[in-house]
């Protein structure tokens, strides 16, 4: 681990928000599992946690952090360090601390209570979703110098992926109800990391409904090993592409 990443992680630990986030996740997950008599119901509540709160915290926290470290970045740039390295270290520091926070907070209760395969999938998806939204936050933060605007963009992006995109999909489903749109729908889900994550988990649990005639097409794709690998690859693209774009912008930016 290079020095800058280490410094970023130490800095994040010192500011205690991530520790509070870890505690929040831990309290929520433990209480969810001890309140529900049925561990599947607990998993469903945690699924909402992973699909809504984890992205929200990841995107807002990262955006604010990037803005707040602008002076630190300027200082580093005056040193003989490549810009790429600075940006990458910042990214990996943030990403690592959020993933560790998630694993410590939610991972332990999930591993204790949930069935192994389902719990493992939930953890994997939670980590990937954290990383995806850190990456999106970097892209949003680099686009504008104004902090208020940057945070606004972050909130809007979260709202878009968590809610508006699905609304759009629902609208399309109604508009094209008379056509065989199942395959087009599968491609469409690739445009939202939250949707991909949700489907990966659903296929592990509500299989019965998905396997009925409605979900047969989805099951055929997402349920297979190839489908799983492709979905994970698409999610990795969701980490890589926004970050690459932000890196390109950062390299050319006049700070």
């Amino acid at each position, binding site marked *: 681990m290079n020095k800058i990443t280490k410094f970023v992680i130490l800095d994040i630990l010192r500011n205690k928000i991530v520790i509070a986030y870890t505690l929040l996740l831990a309290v929520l997950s433990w209480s969810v599992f001890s309140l529900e008599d049925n561990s599947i119901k607990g998993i469903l509540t945690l699924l909402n946690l992973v699909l809504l709160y984890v992205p929200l915290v990841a995107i807002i926290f990262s955006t604010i952090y990037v803005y707040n470290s602008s002076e630190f970045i300027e200082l580093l740039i005056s040193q003989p360090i490549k810009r790429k390295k600075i940006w990458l270290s910042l990214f990996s520091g943030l990403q690592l601390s959020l993933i560790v926070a998630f694993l410590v907070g939610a991972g332990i209760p999930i591993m204790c209570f949930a069935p192994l395969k389902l719990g493992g999938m939930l953890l994997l998806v939670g980590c990937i979703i954290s990383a995806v939204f850190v990456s999106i936050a970097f892209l949003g933060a680099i686009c504008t110098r104004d902090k208020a605007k940057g945070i606004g963009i972050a909130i809007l992006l979260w709202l878009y992926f968590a809610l508006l995109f699905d609304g759009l999909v629902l609208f399309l*489903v109604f508009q094209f109800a008379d056509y065989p749109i199942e395959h087009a*729908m599968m491609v469409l889900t690739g445009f939202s990391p939250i949707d991909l994550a949700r489907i990966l988990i659903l296929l592990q649990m509500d299989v019965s409904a998905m396997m*009925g005639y409605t979900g047969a097409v*989805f099951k055929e794709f997402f349920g297979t090993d190839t489908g799983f690998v492709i979905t994970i690859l698409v999610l990795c693209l969701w980490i890589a592409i926004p970050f690459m774009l932000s890196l390109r912008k950062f390299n050319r930016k006049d700070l």
Partner: protein
Amino acid sequence: MRVYLCTLFILLSPVFLFSRTIRVGKSQALTRIQAAIQKAVAGDTILVEAGTYREGNIIIDKPLVLQGLDYPVLDGEKKFEVLSIKSDHVKVDGFRIENSGYATLEDPCAVKLYDCSNVTVSNNILTDNFFGIYVQFGRNCVIRDNRIKAFGVEEQQIGNGIHCWKSDSLLIIANHITGHRDGIYFEFVTHSVIWRNISYSNIRYGLHFMFSNDDAYITNVFRNNGAGVAVMFTKKVTMINNTFEKNWGDAAYGLLLKEISDSYIYGNQFRENTAAVYMEGTNRILFEQNVVESNGWGLKIQASCMDNVIKRNNFIANTFDISTNGTLVLNTFNGNYWDKYEGYDLNRDGTGDTPYHPLSLFSVITENNPAAMLLYRSLIVSLLDKSEKVIPSLTPDNFVDNAPLIHSLPL
């Protein structure tokens, strides 16, 4: 007293005097079963020793007991119907019957009953036959403790395990049936009981009922069949204590009810089916004390159903408890336990104080637009469902359980 004993002796004397036992086997005088049947007179017992008998079609045309010792094999060589029973009061017990022929016009079987009564087919092992046991115009017949196994791949290439047609007062007890088209098939069969059978991994239905009134099926297990169990065009059927499980796949149902009326469904277990119960044109059914658990859909009640009462059941961990295709509701829900119920019970009488609407908006949406299933459990769907629960606008507001239970019933 003496007079009575004498009368009894005289009545039973034909049995003592004339009933004989004929042995068939490699080392016996008779080596062929058909020859023994020809030699036998009514009431005789034919004991068949172990070995393989390839005699083509064996016809039993007089009241006999055909008893296998150590499971002798009757081989149809994939050409013949193996056993044809054309007489009343026949018993066939303890055979291994294999490889009946395949013909779509004649339906060759392992055992076929032609227009007869009081026949018992028990303790046989049937392997790889076109049809297993076929009862045609049977009355008071018993099919008991048979193990019926086939290796069907396509529906049209294989017959049914136990096929009953135009019969009355049959007892189908404790058979295991697998790999056939339908495990048990009833058409125009009345006053019959299907009890303690296990029908699994059949290509189409585990049990298939058509035009069969006044029947009961009790304590059977239907597992992992292509399309579950179908009860169609029938009235007065009693279904008690059966297990319907793992009927998964396109158009698979635990129990498919189509055009049936005045029936009673009590104490059954429905687990892990794509749709536990599908009702279409179903009237005056009492559905009570059943467990509906871990299914995709609990009940799919089409708008063509009327006057059904669904009370005191457990609905647990189903993706959708109820779905329907219209707005007309002519059925009653009362006192069920729904694990999705979020109400409260202030007076602690075990019944929720607010009514429960089991029909979610999303289940209505997916009924009309199956592709919308992709959005299941997303934020927008839960928001829509929540707002619909508060003010039902798109779903029928009389689709309601007014006395939902707080705790599940001990079923």
